[in-house]
């Protein structure tokens, strides 16, 4: 049988580091007349101090609001006139900006990113206007009980590491921070020696490197200062929380401290998650697309096929420091969260005790191999992955991940189950809906017999 690796060799990624410290990655991809440019900064919400939570994300928003050479009213249109899309996001380890457009617009895209790195305006009125936009974004998230629960579970699971606060920040900090706070943060972290520029598409690599040098080469590097972070101490006992609010659906989350991406446990942990809830791959940008193959997964069978839940999802994402492996469950109408939790924990206890089978492991590997193909189906997705892994780990680690998954053994997956899925390492959160009279929602008889 021909393996995927035989059929689709790893494409060539060329890289260089400019004199100012900017890492530049270029991959030619000539299938469509498109190019995708991503500029990544090694700054995210874990770099924020008390009183300034949410500043990374707010700064990201401000960096779409005009620069010295791109007037505020001309920000929109530059990329659109080349048929392009643009966006950006902030998470715990990183902030990133992207444009994907016709490949002949490459220099326009690089111009925008070079301006963003050094010349953003931070007009006081714009900072104030964006404060309310971000508070609106926060409130939109709070409307969703599952997001609300996710924030609370994460904040409970971590008591020392800055992964504990939400990327959007706490409301009090968003109401307090000033324009100068934002600008100081921007000037500190938006420097070439803290960034990676990724270019993928229908371009010639030599041209791309030359243009990158022209646009970014003169931007000075700046010392980043001390970036010490508090390490999360080992959790020594189960933690629990319950949220109650008006609503109709009940949710349960179980979060376990999990290995960082560069830990040798990470690949076995990915496979453990695949056995429990189906393989999702490792692309945060495309992770919202498509349903994971999970009908044979253990937690799906026990909870969804068992009629206790309408959905179950496992989340393990590549992060720089150890983050969380989270199992999220939406209970079916009328099902008590205690039943959902008991069944889920029973499955998790069993896999911790007995490990996984060869059949399960091979299926998980095949799923993962397919997901790696599906999640790199566009220049945008390819560029995302190159930049993401370079920012939170290394490019070599990204290219080596398929091998790490392929060689993982039943013993290794069983071992991570035994070490990570212990009660003392987990935080369990419930969202218990109240009906509109302030009482727990009544049970509803449905068409399925349950245990």
């Amino acid at each position, binding site marked *: 049988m021909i393996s995927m690796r035989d059929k689709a060799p790893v494409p060539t990624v060329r890289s260089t580091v400019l004199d100012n410290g900017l890492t530049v990655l270029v991959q030619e991809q000539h*299938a469509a007349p498109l190019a995708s440019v991503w500029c990544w900064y090694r700054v995210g919400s874990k770099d924020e101090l008390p009183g300034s939570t949410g500043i990374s994300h707010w700064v990201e928003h401000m960096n779409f609001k005009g620069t010295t050479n791109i007037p505020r009213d001309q920000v929109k249109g530059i990329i659109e006139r080349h048929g392009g899309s643009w966006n950006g996001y902030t998470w715990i380890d990183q902030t990133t900006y992207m444009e994907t457009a016709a490949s002949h617009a490459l220099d326009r895209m690089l111009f925008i990113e070079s301006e963003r790195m050094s010349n953003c305006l931070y007009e006081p009125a714009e900072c104030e206007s964006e404060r309310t936009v971000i508070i609106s974004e926060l409130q939109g998230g709070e409307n969703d009980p599952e997001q609300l629960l996710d924030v609370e579970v994460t904040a409970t699971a971590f008591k020392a590491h800055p992964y504990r606060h939400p990327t959007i920040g706490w409301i009090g900090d968003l109401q307090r921070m000033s324009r100068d706070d934002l600008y100081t943060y921007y000037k500190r972290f938006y420097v070439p020696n803290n960034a990676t520029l990724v270019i993928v598409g229908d371009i010639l690599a030599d041209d791309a490197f030359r243009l990158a040098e022209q646009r970014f080469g003169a931007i000075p590097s700046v010392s980043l200062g001390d970036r010490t972070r508090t390490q999360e101490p080992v959790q020594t006992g189960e933690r629990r929380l319950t949220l109650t609010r008006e609503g109709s659906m009940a949710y349960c989350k179980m979060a376990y401290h999990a290995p960082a991406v560069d830990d040798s446990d990470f690949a076995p942990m990915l496979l453990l998650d695949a056995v429990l809830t189906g393989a999702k791959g490792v692309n945060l940008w495309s992770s919202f697309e498509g349903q994971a193959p999970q009908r044979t997964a253990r937690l799906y069978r026990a909870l969804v096929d068992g009629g206790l839940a309408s959905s179950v999802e496992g989340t393990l994402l590549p992060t720089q420091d150890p983050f969380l492996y989270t199992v999220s469950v939406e209970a079916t109408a009328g099902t008590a969260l205690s039943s959902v939790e008991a069944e889920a924990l029973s499955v998790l206890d069993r896999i911790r005790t007995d490990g996984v089978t060869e059949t399960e492991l091979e299926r998980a590997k095949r799923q993962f191999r397919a997901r790696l193909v599906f999640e790199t189906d566009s220049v945008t997705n390819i560029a995302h992955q190159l930049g993401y892994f370079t920012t939170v780990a290394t490019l070599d680690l990204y290219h080596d991940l398929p091998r790490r998954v392929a060689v993982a053994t039943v013993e290794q997956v069983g071992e991570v189950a035994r070490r990570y899925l212990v009660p003392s390492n987990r935080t369990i959160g419930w969202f218990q809906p109240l009906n509109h009279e302030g009482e727990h929602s009544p049970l509803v008889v449905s068409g399925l017999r349950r245990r």
Partner: protein
Amino acid sequence: MSKNGLTPVRTALPNGVVVLVQSTKTQPAVAINFAMVSGSVCDSADHIGIANFVAHVIDRGTSSRSAEALAEAFDNRGLSFAVRASRHRMILACNCLTDDFEMVLELVADIAQHPSFPDREVGKRRVEIETAIRRDADSSAEAADDLVRALIYGELHPYGRRVSGTLDSLGRIDRTALIDFHRIRCVPKGATLTIAGDVNPSAVTDTVSRLFGDWSADPPVPVSLPPVPEANGRRRAVRQLPGKVQADIAYGFTGVARSDPRYHGFRIMNNVLGQFGLGGRLGNTIRERQGMAYYVFSGLEANIGPGPLIVRAGVSPANVDRAIASIDDEVGKMGADGVTDQELTDAKQFLVGSIPRMLETNAMIATFLQNSEQFDLGMDYDARLPGLFEAVTLDDVCDAAESLLAPDRASIAIAGPIDEDVEGAVSP
């Protein structure tokens, strides 16, 4: 997509199944999209939600494969497989590796033609749908969207109903009804199988003939859409959702059918109003200048019948009236004055320039071709599309705006933590 555009091979089987194959070589993967003319417009009045229910159960067992066997087949290959009902179509869509293509196509054929609707699976999926209906009712965004469609189209028009139905209608649908719906509505006539990826079109056509060629069924009785109620005045409804922090607004009109010759002018108008950049003119006013909302945009859903144009925004409850006034202002201005030359040029450049992006992946190509077939746009539609946008004049766009955008005919729905004494309030 090739830099020279799409080159699909189109064939029609004697039983009516149309097969579209586009070969691409970018990845060792294939996207399969099989669409039948059995969307929610086929729901009968007492079985609203039945198309959606069938979509949830159709892939949970066939006459020769148990639910367990299908689950193994999907998961062993890492398939991304989904079935959904839209207004006019039921679509089975998946991505697979090239090595698995023939086996996966065989699964798709079996699922479409021979579902067994096992009792146990019907029960499980019923619970899932019930849960989804309750979840949507608790979502301010979903509730506002549902409410505005009901305001625009009324209860008698299928575009005014939820595709998933209601808890009441779901309770009236039993296994026999699902089987009957599949027998009558999920038929080869009008179905389209689209395949995009690392395949050889001639070999695929032979395989498709083998798998779908013997399928026979009576053609479905055509569904005729009732006329859309005329919007004689401004309508407003509120759904109270205590405990929420933010309110969602949906503000809409009856738009145009996809077959309307003015369609591309409406697309450009919508792009200027609520798409270009970060939400078009609406985004400029409500998000960028006033800082009122994280999201605001407009969407145009041209369909077999005249689909809606809906403006959506999420705002603080205190800003609901201010946000609606701003939407009124922008909508009214564009209705009265149209768009500018520069806006027309910008929108055209964006829409024409974005075509390669729209056709970059196998799944995107399959969806594009599926739509081209559904709306009879031709297999060269991707090549003609730039010219169709370029041919739109300023007058076309201004006429489109004038015919549609009138605040005094708007349907406005609000869902969130709104006071009970607000005009038009309804209980949850």
